[in-house]
């Protein structure tokens, strides 16, 4: 159940992100939209690994490997999400820095003034 | 052309050399003079005119140097007839096939046209028109010859291939006729080109022209029409005369 809710939420978040990405003119807002999209995907990954009532997939005292396999949520998506978040962070940072340089060049933070290359 | 020159020219017109005087014993036909006095009697303008170089080539002094190479510089030569019998046959053929150069040099040209008509029908005498001097044997000077036309007459005459014959049509060709004192009309044609037959009158009727042709034919058959050879013989005399009146020469001294 939780998985379904999370999945729906994830897609909603992604849709929101895409909407932001597509409809805003301000570069920073576009980047925010992009981050939302990213987060949505991360949520989706987590949702797919979720097991209702599962514990965190941490091997600790009292829970054997068998307990972990039967009781914990899938650890791999979590691991993946961690990586993805890091990467997303890096990309977001790069995007922001590029936005700054674009602003420096064209004195405009709006996307319409930053589309010199075309055709 | 400056009027002064021509005015001067009119009063200084030289007497024809020796036996070249024109008489007109018969108002219908006049035999021409036997030509100039020959070599050594070259008339010069300002003492500078030379027609022939030392190699006996044409000097072509009036041509621009870059044009000289484009013109043949061989002077005309006297070409002896064949022996009597054969030459008589050829002369018969020449006389029976008279091709007129279609060049109406003056008002008399109008008298040529009726010859083609059914009334006069020159074809029955073996006479017909020809559009190019190369192929013609008779040059009919149709009346007065202005200085301007004279240049073209000389050129066309020289371009005809010998034996060639000249008919002077009308009084103007004999003595200038009614234009005798005009500033630009040649008074005596045979000072410039050898004339075989004169047809006096102003204007002579086509019948007179026909009569002239008949006369010409008789003369050809007798071997008397050696105008081309006479021209070659007295070449320098003719040239001097021509050049005296034609100022903007601008062509070779002999137009092959």
């Amino acid at each position: 159940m939780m998985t379904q809710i999370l999945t729906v939420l994830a897609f909603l978040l992604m849709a929101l992100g895409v909407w932001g990405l597509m409809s805003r003119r301000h570069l920073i807002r576009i980047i925010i939209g992009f981050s939302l999209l990213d987060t949505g995907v991360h949520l989706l990954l987590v949702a797919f690994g979720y097991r209702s009532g599962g514990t965190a997939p941490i091997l600790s005292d009292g829970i054997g490997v068998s307990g972990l396999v039967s009781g914990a949520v899938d650890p791999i998506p979590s691991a993946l999400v961690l990586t993805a978040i890091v990467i997303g962070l890096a990309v977001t940072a790069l995007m922001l820095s590029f936005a700054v340089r674009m602003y420096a060049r064209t004195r405009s933070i709006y996307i319409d003034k930053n589309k010199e290359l075309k055709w | 052309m400056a009027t002064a020159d021509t005015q001067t020219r009119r009063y200084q017109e030289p007497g024809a050399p020796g036996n070249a005087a024109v008489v007109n014993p018969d108002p219908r036909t006049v035999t021409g003079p036997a030509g100039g006095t020959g070599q050594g009697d070259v008339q010069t303008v300002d003492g500078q005119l030379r027609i022939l170089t030392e190699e006996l080539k044409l000097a072509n002094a009036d041509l621009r140097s870059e044009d000289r190479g484009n013109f043949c510089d061989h002077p005309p030569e006297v070409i002896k007839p064949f022996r009597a019998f054969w030459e008589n046959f050829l002369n018969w053929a020449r006389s029976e096939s008279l091709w007129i150069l279609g060049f109406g040099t003056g008002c008399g040209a109008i008298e040529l046209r009726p010859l083609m008509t059914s009334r006069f029908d020159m074809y029955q005498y073996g006479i017909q028109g020809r559009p190019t001097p190369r192929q013609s044997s008779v040059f009919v000077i149709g009346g007065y010859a202005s200085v301007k036309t004279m240049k073209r007459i000389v050129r066309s005459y020289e371009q005809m291939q010998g034996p060639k014959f000249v008919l002077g049509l009308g009084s103007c060709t004999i003595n200038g006729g009614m234009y005798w004192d005009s500033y630009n009309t040649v008074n005596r044609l045979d000072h410039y080109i050898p004339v075989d037959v004169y047809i006096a009158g102003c204007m002579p009727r086509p019948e007179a022209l026909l009569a002239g042709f008949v006369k010409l034919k008789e003369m050809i058959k007798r071997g008397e029409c050696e105008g081309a050879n006479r021209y070659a013989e007295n070449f320098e005399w003719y040239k001097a005369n021509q050049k005296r009146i034609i100022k903007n020469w601008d062509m070779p001294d002999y137009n092959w």
Partner: protein
Amino acid sequence: MTQMILTKALYTVISLAVITNYALILIGTMARIRAKVQGRVGQPFYQPYIDIVKSNAKRTSISHGVMFFLGPVFRLAGGLGTYLFIPAIFGSVIFSNFSFSGDLLLMMYFIFFGQLGMALGAGESGHPHSAIGVARGLAQMTAFELPFVLSVVALAAQYGTLSITEIVAAQQGGFTHWAAFTNPLAMIAGMIAFLGMSGANPFSVVVAPQEIPIGPPTEMQSSFLGMLQTNRAIFNGAKMVLFMNLFWGGAAHENLLVAILIMVVKTFLIYLYVTIVGASFPRFKTEQSIRFFLGVPTVIGIAAVVLQMV
């Protein structure tokens, strides 16, 4: 072998002598007929002979160069060759000429030989009018060539051969067998083309006297002109003999003299036709005659060919 060659040479001389004299007289006669029509006496029928003698009797001549010198030679060679590749009289050994060397195609292309030589000679004269005349002549030639070729192809298709002798042979046996009646469309196209080929009015723009003096031979004089005059006779004769062979049953009779007579009559009529048309029409401009030939005559020619195909 030697005897054979000598015999052939003799025959050739006879054949050429007949055609040359006949054609010269024909030209003279035709001029006289034209004069009569115009109410004149006209020149003697032997005037062409005198003119040729006169031209050759000129004491001087000028030459513009080798090709100019050879031009009339090429022209006359073209005329002679054209005649010699046609069997003039069907069934006659003497008048079969050198028709064994090639067929109709050879003849059609050999016509170019003289044209080319003359055009080269005229070209070397350096006279612009010669070149203009040649340009006009060649242009007009290609134009009348098309209906002519179509009619020839129609004939070749009809008789299944390109050999002139066989085409004539197929027309024997009464005038209804003549191609003129068995293949009238081809005949019409061919005979219209013949008008262009003979260069008379209305297709005389090539020489166009008084306009470009006289076209290609403007500079030709003396003996050169004499050769051209000779060729005019022979070449005309050759063409008339060709058309007689193609469309009008050729000249055939067991008696050679009668056969010659037949040839004389037929070619005379063909020439008369050209003369009448020439006397009746004014001159076309070059582009007009090109358009003319590529118009109705070509359509007729195509019709003749198509009729052979169906």
